[in-house]
């Protein structure tokens, strides 16, 4: 790995080796062992990340914002139901279950109508013949 490649790695992935990938960590380790400039660049990238982190953690939300946040429950009515159809089960699960049940019922009805067994096929000619011969037998 060259110094330029290392700098690009620092710029795109940051100074945390966990974000570099195994192969790049190995190549970087070799570069850092032999190059003081690479070590200096890593230290600079870490200082920048640390400075940013400090900036983030030390920035304080203004008091007026905190007051606005505390007022939210009173000023913003909730748009989601607080209670579920079944205690302990989210409302959308209950709805999904009901929809699934209805779908199964309708599918069952449709399949039943198609596959309903209406008995063996009857040959009309045989029936007529049987009826005629039966009547002849009586005479």
């Amino acid at each position, binding site marked *: 790995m060259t110094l330029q490649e290392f700098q690009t790695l620092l710029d795109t992935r940051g100074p945390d080796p966990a974000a570099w990938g195994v192969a790049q960590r190995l190549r970087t380790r070799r570069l850092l062992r032999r190059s003081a400039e690479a070590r200096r660049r890593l230290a600079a990238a870490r200082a920048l*990340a640390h400075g940013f982190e400090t900036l983030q953690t030390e920035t304080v939300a203004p008091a007026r914002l905190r007051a606005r946040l505390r007022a939210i429950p009173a000023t913003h009515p909730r748009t989601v139901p607080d209670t579920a159809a079944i205690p302990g089960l989210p409302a959308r699960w209950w709805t999904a279950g009901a929809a699934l049940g209805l779908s199964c019922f309708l599918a069952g009805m449709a399949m039943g109508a198609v596959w309903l067994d209406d008995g063996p096929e009857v040959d009309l000619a045989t029936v007529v013949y049987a009826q005629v011969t039966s009547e002849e037998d009586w005479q």
Partner: protein
Amino acid sequence: MGEREDDDELVARVAQGDADAFEVLADRHADRVFALSRRILGNDADAEDAAQEVFVRLWTRADRYRPGRARFTTWLYRVTTNTCLNMRRGTVEAPMPDSPPEQAAPDGDPETAAEAALQRERLTKAIDGLPANQRTAVSLSLQREFSNREAAAAMTISVKALEALLVRARRSLRAALAGARDGG
């Protein structure tokens, strides 16, 4: 880890309409949400509006958070990022503020504190001086809560495009900070 459990518990209570739980969560995370919003939007007034919008969403949509999928803070910062980006898309970018944001009072001896304050001011100025897209990219990247893939998704750009923004942003920051140090 304990905080994560506490956050998850509190969010579950917020989803049930518990205003006390909401107040605890808002107090705990207001600083970080405001800080991230300010980094992305570049000024205090918009950052306050964005932070309020984020917590309104937490109050009204807490049931959308799934504890097993992501840490609460990751979810919260994603909501923050999306809120800020939506605000930025809807508005012309505001001019940069003249003063850095309010900071917590540092501990330690006055000389070290003064040097630290100077460093913070330089960094704040350098970040605020970046173009909006670079500032957002570097803010998300340095947030540690986001991988590059997640940051790119939040900005609705490709990972390659995000990395190009990061390279330019970090080069600019290095140059700005080096210039500030050399200039005294």
